[in-house]
């Protein structure tokens, strides 16, 4: 296909777009006339079905039920109306992002009486993007119509209203193009240090624009690493950036995988390539890694795309750089290589933690040039061409010039190209959509989800998991896996009745995350009652001294798993001003309430067994020198032991069993003492 025919305007409404009547539309085609609760960008309603309400018709009862839902959701919900199927439409307190609304829905789902809670999305007939060359982008189409495609249409629906994510394009730089919204292009950097490669008259600078990477045959022969043949400018970085983030639904050209992504151009390649040292600096800078030899990056990327490679092992030097990028929180996606040989020989795709992407042809076979092997994480369309600009390639933005660029819009064009360079940005774009839905996902979790949701290679494909990774990129399923993540459960323990001035333990030990997530954070917050000072408010077990005057206290526990999902629970404590019992009289008359190990084991100093032990200490140990020495030694050693057992329910129970003989003796002596009084 030549360029003119490729640009020919086409608008297609496919029968398959009506897969479901509940499919919403792309963010970019939000109807500005929408004013009913929810728009394409925001959500203001939930559809909730409770198991009991289907048989209830009394409005007072329903209102009471909504109040219960509000408590469970920790936001004010109001009933809009009942709807068919026994469900209810409830209004959120304000319009919010889909991710925020999803969090509230997940809180409701923790209530066993809630059968389902879903976003009441704005619905309209589903249209494919109006970008005139979308039909040429077979690699983005749905999986039903294109065997190897990345299945973007349903993914776009799932990403409605998500927050933009910064994606770094570490490549040859970026050209202005009418299909790349300049408002979404961040200030990048040019890390090409070699003046010949840089071709911009200097070494490193703050301008990541692509001046072109053409070489004449004479120049190629004169420079080591350039080979012998003349080459036209590749506009490689611009092509990659277009695949990731070309504007969606702007009526021209193509659709990017993530038309809301912020693009961070990082130039590391120029004529004949670039030095690995420049790539390492550029990748670290892209992720915002703090280093004395890098300029500051005010817009660190969450996804770093490396459509590049060198035939070398992943040395410790390379792995250190990759580790730095991942530790900064960035997903790192790389081309597996175009060697038609082992991907393990191409860096940085062969480094641990990198999502290396192999290339598929349109039928789901490994593209003839693609590197393959155990280091490949998954595959995505890379095209397989046998002549230039063949339509079996990946269609993206380019420039008409073969040397220095022709300025936009005059120089804007679109072309088909191929390579694992074109596969990687599709994965990077999908990763950015996943992070847009849940920014708390870690690079490791993104990799796991992309692999777990990859589509099986088609029957007869020459790809296997040993050669092409976990499967074929499936954007829709990957995003659904983010939305399906189940929130943890929070358990703040049972309500308690305690005495004033006593230490009170709060335990979140009953909280749990859903496998494979784990709880990453506990937060205890006092909601009401006389103010107390919480000890260890961010630990599984917190404690405080109950107010002497008594009162009703309420605390909220919030747990967050390592996927960023949260859950809350509340616990009420009724504090009674301490009665002056015989034991308490001892304490208040100078007795010491400390009994570290037993208190830790029982969770409170106010259980009878702990009181018997304290009474034994005060009446029999503290009354003689040997006993006092023992108590002093105990007070030195026991806090560490108490701290060790406190977080573990099993250990606490074990210690309680071990204390039984001591409590029995203490009770016998204390009772005997009372009888002699």
């Amino acid at each position: 296909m030549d360029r003119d025919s490729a640009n020919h305007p086409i608008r297609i409404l496919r029968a398959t777009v009506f897969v479901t009547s509940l499919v919403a539309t792309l963010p970019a085609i939000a109807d500005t006339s929408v004013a009913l609760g929810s728009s394409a960008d925001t959500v203001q309603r939930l559809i909730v079905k409770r198991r009991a309400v289907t048989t209830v018709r009394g409005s007072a009862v329903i209102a009471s039920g909504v109040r219960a839902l509000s408590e469970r959701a920790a936001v004010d919900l109001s009933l809009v109306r009942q709807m068919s199927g026994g469900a209810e439409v409830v209004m959120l307190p304000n319009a919010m992002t889909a991710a925020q609304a999803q969090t509230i829905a997940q809180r409701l789902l923790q209530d066993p009486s809630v059968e389902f809670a879903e976003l009441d999305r704005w619905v309209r007939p589903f249209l494919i993007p109006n970008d005139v060359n979308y039909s040429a982008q077979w690699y983005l189409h749905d999986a039903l119509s294109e065997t190897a495609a990345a299945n973007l249409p349903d993914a776009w629906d799932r990403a409605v209203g998500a927050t933009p994510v910064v994606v770094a394009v570490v490549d040859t730089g970026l050209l202005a193009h009418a299909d790349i919204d300049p408002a979404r292009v961040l200030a990048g950097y040019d890390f090409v240090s070699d003046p010949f490669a840089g071709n911009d008259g200097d070494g490193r600078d703050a301008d990541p624009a692509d001046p072109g990477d053409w070489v004449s045959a004479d120049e190629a022969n004169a420079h080591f690493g350039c080979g012998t043949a003349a080459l036209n400018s590749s506009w490689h970085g611009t092509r990659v950036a277009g695949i990731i983030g070309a504007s969606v639904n702007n009526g021209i050209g193509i659709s990017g995988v993530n038309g809301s992504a912020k693009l961070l151009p990082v130039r590391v390649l120029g004529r004949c390539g670039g030095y690995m040292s420049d790539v390492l600096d550029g990748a670290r800078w892209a992720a915002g890694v703090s280093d004395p030899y890098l300029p500051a990056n005010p817009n660190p990327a969450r996804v770093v795309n490396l459509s590049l490679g060198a035939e070398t092992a992943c040395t410790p030097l390379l792995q250190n750089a990759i580790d730095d990028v991942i530790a900064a929180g960035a997903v790192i996606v790389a081309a597996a290589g175009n060697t038609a040989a082992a991907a393990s020989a191409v860096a940085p795709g062969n480094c641990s933690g990198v999502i290396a992407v192999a290339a598929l042809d349109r039928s789901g076979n490994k593209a003839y040039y693609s590197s393959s092997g155990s280091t490949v994480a998954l595959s995505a369309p890379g095209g397989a061409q046998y002549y230039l600009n063949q339509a079996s390639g990946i269609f993206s933005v380019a420039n008409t010039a073969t040397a220095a660029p022709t300025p936009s819009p005059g120089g804007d064009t679109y072309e088909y190209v191929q390579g694992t360079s074109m596969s990687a940005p599709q994965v990077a774009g999908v990763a950015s959509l996943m992070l847009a839905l849940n920014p708390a996902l870690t690079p490791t979790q993104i990799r796991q989800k992309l692999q777990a949701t990859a589509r099986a290679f088609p029957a007869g494909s020459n790809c296997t998991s040993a050669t092409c990774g976990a499967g074929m990129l499936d954007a829709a399923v990957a995003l659904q896996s983010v939305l399906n993540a189940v929130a943890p459960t929070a358990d703040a323990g049972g309500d308690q009745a305690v005495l004033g001035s006593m230490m009170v333990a709060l335990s979140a030990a009953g909280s749990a995350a859903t496998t494979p997530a784990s709880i990453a954070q506990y937060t205890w917050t006092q909601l009401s009652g006389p103010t107390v000072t919480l000890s260890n408010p961010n630990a599984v077990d917190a404690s405080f001294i109950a107010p002497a005057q008594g009162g009703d206290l309420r605390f909220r526990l919030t747990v967050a798993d390592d996927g960023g999902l949260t859950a809350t629970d509340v616990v009420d404590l009724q504090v009674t001003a301490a009665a002056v019992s015989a034991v308490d009289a001892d304490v208040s008359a100078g007795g010491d309430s400390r009994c570290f190990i037993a208190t830790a084991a029982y969770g409170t100093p106010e259980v009878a067994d702990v009181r018997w032990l304290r009474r034994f200490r005060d009446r029999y140990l503290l009354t003689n020198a040997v006993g006092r020495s023992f108590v002093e030694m105990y007070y030195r050693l026991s806090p560490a032991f108490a701290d060790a057992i406190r977080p573990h329910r099993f250990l606490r129970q074990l210690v309680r069993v071990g204390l039984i003989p001591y409590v029995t003796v203490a009770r016998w002596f204390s009772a005997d003492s009372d009888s002699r009084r």
Partner: protein
Amino acid sequence: MRAWAVVATALAGVAATGACATNTPLSQPGGSLGDRAERVDRVVVVQLIIVFRADIRAADPAFLAAVSKDIGTPLAYLRPISGGAHLLSATLPPTSVNDLVRRLQNRPDVMDVQPDVTVRRQ
């Protein structure tokens, strides 16, 4: 003979501007790793990424002179790079690079060293 040269030049020109042509054969995607046959009989400037022991001042001329003398190849200091590494260069035949790397690896003050390889678009 001159006519042949004109024809060859014209063919080379067509190949070089292949992006403008339809159905120009492709062997590999642009920038592939395997299409860059190099001449190995010349002397080239090679960059090395080196991580030195923490107490080493890599840019110190006296230190560099000592190292250069020890390994038998003059090293020039270029600049520090991210990750605590340093960039140095040496002028030598490409076939001698691996030997130079091995000699540097054997030094107790060198924690890691590798050639600053050329990375290409895929």
